[in-house]
């Protein structure tokens, strides 16, 4: 892919991250979902991994994780490490199993969201007796459900960014083969 497309994509992904995390921390909590806290950034990272590969996924996951860790103010670097690793893993595994589709990104997003939220709940809340185990089903899972529904436009946006420069890339690959 041409360098200018890489730069454009990087800028677009950064803007996307800031827009989504801004929405996640300002408007979402006011929509009356009580203690439910949907994490849309997970879906963006998963989508970047599905549509742009492990490198982009890992980088988007890293930035999303850093901002989430900073804004949550707890368990420093938990989201950073988890989100970047899981996104890179998705980017590495997904192309070998599934096609690059919105549904694939949704599936990976839900998987990553459940993994991240459940681990966080169990290791930083439940094991310290700060909440009963039932909250995994009354708080964590409904949060994942809402995030999955709201994650669709996030994934669609990431798909648009992922398509940038792909045609040129394919054409240059074909030219190389013909040549």
């Amino acid at each position, binding site marked *: 892919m041409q360098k200018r497309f*890489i730069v454009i994509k990087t800028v677009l992904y950064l803007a996307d991250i*800031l*827009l989504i*995390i*801004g*929405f*996640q*921390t*300002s*408007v*979402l*909590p*006011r929509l009356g979902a*009580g*203690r*439910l*806290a949907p*994490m849309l950034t997970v879906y963006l990272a998963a989508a970047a991994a599905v549509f742009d*590969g*492990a*490198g982009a996924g*890992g*980088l988007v996951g*890293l930035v999303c994780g*850093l*901002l*989430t*860790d*900073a*804004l*949550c*103010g*707890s368990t*420093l*670097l938990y989201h*950073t*490490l988890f989100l*970047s690793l899981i996104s890179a893993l998705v980017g*590495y595994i997904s192309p070998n199993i599934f096609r690059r589709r919105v549904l694939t990104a949704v599936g990976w997003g839900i998987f990553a969201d459940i993994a991240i939220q459940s681990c966080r709940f169990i290791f*930083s*809340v439940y094991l310290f007796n*700060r*909440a009963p185990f039932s909250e995994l089903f009354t*708080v*964590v899972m409904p*949060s994942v459900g809402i995030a999955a529904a709201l994650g669709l436009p996030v994934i669609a946006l990431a798909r648009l960014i992922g398509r940038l420069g792909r045609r040129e890339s394919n054409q240059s690959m074909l030219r190389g083969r013909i040549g």
Partner: protein
Amino acid sequence: MRGFFRSLFGKILIIAVAVILVGAALLAIFGEGSSVFRRTALAIVSPFQKGYTAVYNAVERFFAAGERYDDLLKENEDLRAQIAELEGQLRDVSEIMDENVSLRDLLGMKQRYESYDIINATIIGWSDTSWRSCFTVNRGSDDGVELGDCVISHNGLVGRVSELGGSYAEVTTLLDPSSGIGVSVVGNGVTALAKGQLEYMDSDRLLLSSIPHGSNIFAGDLLETSGLGGSIPPGLIVGKVERVSASPDGMGDYAVAVLAEDVSALTGVYIILDFSVEE
């Protein structure tokens, strides 16, 4: 994948990731890391939060106005009738004010505070986790806000400033499990420690502990800040006692109190920049 990490971009990415992770880990280990980390993130994200909040408020106002148009017409007629009635009542106001002053004297109430230096603030963001209760406001150190400043609403104390930037401040509410303030019962002075609990966070309730066994504290009692320690002004309304129980070990009592303010419904608050108390 292998090709990606061999490319120049891939190498730069790996180095950037390593530098960020090591830097963040060092900051976390050596003291104020978490604070620096959060301040940086808030500085980046807060303009987006302000934008979203402005749009959200505008949309909310628009729809609220549309829905209430018919109600407003009727309300307008009612209000016109009330104005006529109120004009009559206005004549009695000075008499009522005098009566108010005499009643205050009668009850022995006194103005405890010489002055509060207060600024208003708009809430621009909320914590995006289920395990904390905090929000971000559009005032910061540029407006004179300091860490630990009390944040109040019309109904009473809401929380304290826990994180600070130039144009924003993060407020940890009384409902947050990390919050804890000294309160006293209005009327009899029984003191207790009011703490946020995860299980009560959603229902605007606090746990009162450290109550001596047999103290005169009952459901319905009003709670105010005790002011012990000097960092919080005394006399700020906190909430109302809902129920009192004996602790399982029999050493004391505990109680559950309802916060005076519905925190989740707040859109604006006031920050107490400075206060003085008359002894």
